[in-house]
């Protein structure tokens, strides 16, 4: 055999081996693949990395507990840098691997907007726990988007409820001023519609203050706040923008007690560098806060980290963003479990079957407690028409060293949210010529 023939033979053998390793048949039986779109470098890495660590740790924990009815989870990570183009590239690269992606979680509203167009064609659910398009709660129109457990409209609604309670009722909001300091991106703009709606209802004023990416230059923004003296500042930031806002508030003397961040502006990386300067700063807790004592965290430590398989640093386990990633992974695992209930226990499920699973998540308190989430979150019940499944939130406050819950539970007001969701999603359906699914369609 000459050299050329040998090279051809080797190439053929390599291609054959590679095909054998990557064909769906080799994995489909007992493995379930999830792409992990993460950002561990760049401007948003301090917030992206703990989320990704919690997300991956939960999948490791699930495998350590024996998988989902014996089906092991496999995943591959791709660095998006929080950039929409790189996120789409990651999605395209990973969507067909290992028998096809079961679901994808982009951790970016910008990437979510882009994938919303692609998901129906690829039949891959896009899970956006606590972010994404608020109107995608309507599963009749957004058949493949799952803003599980919280949308920005719901979050903003809870914040308005909270300040109304502090003032002594919604009627007391009349004449008040709320400044929204927001990341000038699709993410930061999401709460505007809800705040304007609530402002119309209760007679308060909303001052909009956009901050350009990455958010390190805010002096002019806070000078405007100093001039207009709003009663409250809502912060819709991400990454370094959050700590910069709190530092500028300190530098201009704005009371941190009157600042309320969204749940992406209320984690340890946002305040630990500011220390005492952030004392009194409040943020929404998307149900959970920092949960170092939760049973699921003890399980992660004993079944994953104690075996040297932890994804990130041990001291991060149980922190706010770590918990967010962990819960995001738990919700997708429960989607797989629900889908297996219909399509066969212990079997690999497709993206389409996963959608059914995500539309039929039914986690009552007993089920959550059994998974180790007692005290961490409240029941989640999704349906074909409601892709959010739960609208609970509370407020937590930084005491200079740690986050402490400072309010009781609130629930997004469906009387305000539902009409907005229906109106915006109908408009989207009209624009994209989507025929909304009917309850009959949902049974299929």
């Amino acid at each position, binding site marked *: 055999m000459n050299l050329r023939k040998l090279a051809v033979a080797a190439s053929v053998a390599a291609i054959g081996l590679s095909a054998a390793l990557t064909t769906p048949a080799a994995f489909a039986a007992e493995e379930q693949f999830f792409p992990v779109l993460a950002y*561990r*470098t*760049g*401007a948003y*890495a*301090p917030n992206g*990395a703990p989320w990704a660590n919690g997300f991956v740790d939960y999948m490791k924990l699930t495998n350590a507990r024996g998988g989902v009815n014996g089906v092991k989870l496999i995943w591959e990570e791709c660095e998006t840098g929080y950039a929409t183009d790189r996120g789409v590239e990651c999605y395209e690269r990973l969507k067909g691997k290992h028998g096809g992606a079961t679901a994808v979680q982009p951790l970016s509203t910008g990437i979510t907007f882009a994938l919303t167009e692609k998901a129906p064609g690829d039949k891959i659910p896009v899970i956006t726990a606590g972010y994404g398009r608020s109107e995608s709660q309507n599963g009749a129109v957004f058949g493949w988007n799952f803003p599980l457990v919280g949308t920005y409209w719901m979050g903003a609604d809870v914040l308005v409820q909270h300040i109304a309670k502090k003032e002594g009722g919604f009627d007391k909001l009349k004449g008040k001023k709320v400044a929204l300091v927001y990341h*000038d991106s699709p993410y930061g703009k999401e709460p505007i519609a809800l705040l304007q709606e609530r402002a119309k209802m209760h007679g308060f004023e909303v001052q*909009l*203050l*956009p*901050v*350009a990416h*990455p*958010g*390190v*230059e805010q*002096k*002019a*923004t806070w*000078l*405007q706040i*100093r*001039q207009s003296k709003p009663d409250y500042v809502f912060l819709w930031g991400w*990454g*370094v923008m959050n*700590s*910069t806002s709190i*530092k500028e508030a*300190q*530098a*201009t*003397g704005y009371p941190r007690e009157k600042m309320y961040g969204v749940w992406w502006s209320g984690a340890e*990386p946002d305040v*630990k*560098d500011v*220390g005492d*300067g952030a004392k009194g700063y409040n943020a929404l807790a998307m149900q959970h806060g920092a949960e170092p004592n939760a049973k699921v965290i003890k399980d992660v430590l004993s079944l994953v980290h104690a075996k040297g398989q932890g994804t990130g640093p041990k001291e991060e386990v149980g922190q706010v963003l770590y918990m967010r990633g962990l819960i995001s992974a738990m919700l997708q695992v429960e989607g797989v479990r629900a889908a297996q209930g219909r399509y066969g226990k212990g079997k690999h499920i497709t993206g389409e079957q996963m959608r059914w699973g995500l539309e039929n998540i039914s986690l009552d308190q007993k089920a959550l407690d059994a998974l180790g989430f007692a005290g961490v979150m409240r029941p989640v019940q999704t349906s074909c028409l409601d892709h959010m499944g739960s609208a609970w939130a509370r407020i937590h406050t930084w005491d200079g060293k740690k986050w402490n819950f400072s309010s009781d539970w609130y629930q997004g007001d469906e009387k305000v949210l539902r009409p907005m969701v229906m109106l915006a999603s109908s408009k989207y359906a009209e624009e994209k010529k989507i025929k909304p699914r009917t309850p009959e369609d949902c049974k299929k």
Partner: protein
Amino acid sequence: MSFFLETLLGGLMSGMLYSLVALGFVLIYKASGVFNFAQGAMVLFAALSMARFSEWIPQWLGMDNLFMANLLAFAISVVVMFTVAWLVERLVLRHLVNQEGATLLMATLGIAYFLDGVGQTIFGSDIYKIDVGMPKEPVMMLENIFEGGILINKEDFVAAFISALLVVALSIFFQKTATGRALRAVADDHQAAQSIGIPLDRIWVIVWCVAGITALVAGIIWGSKLGAQFSLSTVALRALPVVILGGLTSVPGAIIGGLIIGVGEKISEVYLGPMVGGGIEIWFAYMLALMFLLFRPQGLFGEKIIDRV
């Protein structure tokens, strides 16, 4: 009136901080004719080094003295930046002597990406604290002249003062020392400078070392304000309009340019921003710089280049 003065002062102090980064660009361009796109990455690298060593040293030595920890971290960071300078000259610039300016620019772009990536790999990609005792609380001044007084950010004030000191020191270095004059000779003409015995490789190492020190000071000040994290590398983008406006070859130009840009962007954001939806200060700074270029293409203090044909 008091609010306008606050905005003006805030802009001036921000401008001084931009000048500090712009100085790094000017220094290297002045001495080597290279537009160093890696200046922002050097600021990030230096800030990460300072933040991490000031955190690690007390753990390694078991001590609890913040001043000593900062002093040692500063000394180590100086060595780190000198090493970076030496490596840049040895591995990149030495091989590009007398190459086109665009080639050198692309090389510095490569250095920027390399430093961004390696910095985060070695030191981590979290937000790290630099605590050099900068005051954080604001102070009210002129309360008997203006109703409610004028709010001054003490941290910005101290930072602007340190920047001013550095500028004075660098101006003296360039104008009054033999090394400074050699740096300017190299900038004018590499070959002519070599022909009269100025060692090009040593001069380049020196200028990158000086730019490294400037980056370290900028990194400490910006890092103390914002935390040492990746976004510091984007601070260089804030300094670009400053060098466009001030001229690439002028130290005073970097200062005046910084002040004009600082004031211009703050006043535009505060007074024009609300009319157009806000968020205009970044592009407004570039627009301001470009408007100046219409009248003075070489920048405010840049040298007018006249080539014989």
